[in-house]
């Protein structure tokens, strides 16, 4: 899967879970400060990403991800580099 495909799926999943338009979400956005994802939403997002990419992530690693770009890198690394 290309990085762009991963980025699109991360952004679309984020938009769906946070009930936002995908066009309003940017790679530079922080989940907490910019998109308003509190710790409850963070858990739902991790679960949504797992289903989207059909992966099971290490919880403590996933919860360290702070930004959309970070999530893209995280899943790119899991999918393409492991």
């Amino acid at each position, binding site marked *: 899967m290309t990085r762009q495909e991963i980025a699109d799926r991360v952004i679309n999943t984020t938009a769906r879970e946070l009930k936002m338009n995908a066009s309003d979400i940017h790679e530079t956005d*922080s989940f*907490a400060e910019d998109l308003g994802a509190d710790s*409850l939403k963070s858990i*739902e997002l991790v*679960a*949504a990403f*797992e289903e989207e990419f059909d992966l099971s992530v*290490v*919880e*403590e690693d996933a919860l360290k991800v702070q930004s959309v770009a970070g999530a893209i890198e995280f899943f790119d690394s899991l999918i393409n580099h492991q």
Partner: protein
Amino acid sequence: MDSLHLDQSQITVLEQQGCSASDWQTVTLSPQCILSRIRNAAFSGTVEIGDNTGVIRVDGMEFDCGIYHAAITDCTIGDHVRIANVGSVVARYVVGDNVAIENTAALIADIDPACGNGVELDVVNEAGGRGTVIFNELSAHTAYMQALMRHNPECTRRLSSLILAALRATARGARIGSHARIVHCGVIRNVDVGPYAFLHGTQYLENGSILSCAEHPTEIGEGVQARSFIIAEGAKIESGAILDKVYCGQAVKMGKQFSAENSLFFANCEAYHGEAVSLFAGPYTVTHHKSTLLIAGLFSFFNAGSGSNQSNHMYKLGPVHQGVFERGCKTGSFSYVLLESRIGAFSVVIGKHYSNINTPNLPFSYIHEDEGASKLIPGMTLFSVGTVRDGEKWPKRDNRKAPVKRDLLCFDVFSPYTVEKMRRGRDELLALAESTPKEKPFVTYGGLQINRLLLRKGAKYYSMAIARYLNEKVSERLMNALAHSSDWAVATASLSSDGLLQHPDEWTDLCGLLTPRERLAALEAMITSNACESIDDVNRELGAMYDAYRADEWRYVCDVFRKEYGIEPAALTHEKALAAVEEWKRSASSLHAMILEDAKREFAAFAKIGYGIDRNEEERERDFLSVRGSSETNSVVQKLVNEEKELEQRYQQYSSIILTNRKE
């Protein structure tokens, strides 16, 4: 005390000092009594006065002992007592040694007063049906058995008769215990005051007992109004608290106009500003804020946010609904829970919930409101730093100093009680995940919605906590066994369960005391069959349950370890033991890392929003740093960091011991 009748010359002296008596023949004095220290006193009935030499401290000053400006009726007064400036009368009290009663409106007892003992409180259900009798020896557990075991009416009836028998056996007149201080108080009627109690500025007390002791004096402060109550050792009730039919247990703190009726508060509860009605506040129930109403419910190890509220009334058959917040729950600001509800242990409730919640098998959950819907995130507080702090702070904040601690408390956050709930929750969540199609965004469970994506996630969190608990218990036990014998067969044989419990996985929380259900059933049977002949017998059995907790916990661990991993701890090979240590390390490290991340979030950018007002970014950072510090300096975070290192060290040590033993 060898009291003597007064001779005529003594009577003359006292009358010249403004004293009078209805009959001087019924007034007796200690031979050591200094007559000049009895002035403007009016005696009636039988009055016995002890040695009044010496001084006593009141308001930080030393005053002579004696009786000044007071009417005394049918009293026995001990040695070195000062009674001064009593508005009306001190009547029918036995006053102990070294007592000070100063500037108090009245201290009056009827003949054979109950002093709050035997009063029945309508707890948990405001409409009644769970009447609980308060008495001096009440514990959270005997109260629980009275209120919440109505499925067994014969047990309830028999327990009630044991309590009444105890009340009859201990009935006595009202007393002011030695070293008590009663200063600047209003009317005190039919109140038994224990040794070393300190009553100051209290407004009105009627029909109560204030238990107190040298080790932990009880304090009743300004503006308190209390009727039909018992207040236990070390409690501090102050600043306008209003109590009507209330029991306050050991080391309870209450004040700032808190009002309570038909309510029980057990060890270390704290209640300020708010209101309690028909509340069964188990140990460590804390409510500090205005507009918080705790009503018609069973709580323990609970923390109420401001404006927390529940409703027990649907305007149909009256206030008949009740709630259960299992141990360790918290409610957020202005949360609302519709009763009937039962919230699983260590859950957090945020927002307003208009459905009847029933989630005992989903402990450690977040219950929140999202666009008007009530939702649950299972297992989320497992990795909240708040849960960790709670588990550590309760034993540290056990303020009870009385020699006998009536409430027998198991503080463990992870216990057979909570772990078994997680096992059930895990299985239920996995079953729901299996049966829920992908198209369905959420499932309904216990009156709440759970995001479908979180079903497996919650089950995973529970699995991690279960694995950590079981494997840590087994690993620790094995290490202890190997310390006593390096013979693997001998060491592992000592891990076997004695099989004493038929159902080691069925536990109950007896309001702070965790015990297998069959032990409670056995106690019920003993009470019902009259094998318990007194309330002391019941308390002894409860003590035995408490003492058996660790052994029972191991019986649970053996049973559930076998169910989870297919092997008894006693049958562990070196390889299986290494796997158990590995599993413990893996699950503990994961949960610990998640907790650490949760703690570090308290130092993220959003946490700095209110800092450095109208200042630049650098000043904002400096302001935050000076007030909150950083994750590198925060003591909680650093403790977590150190624990991670300790965890790694223990893992290395355990593995090394097993590997070394295998070589031998």
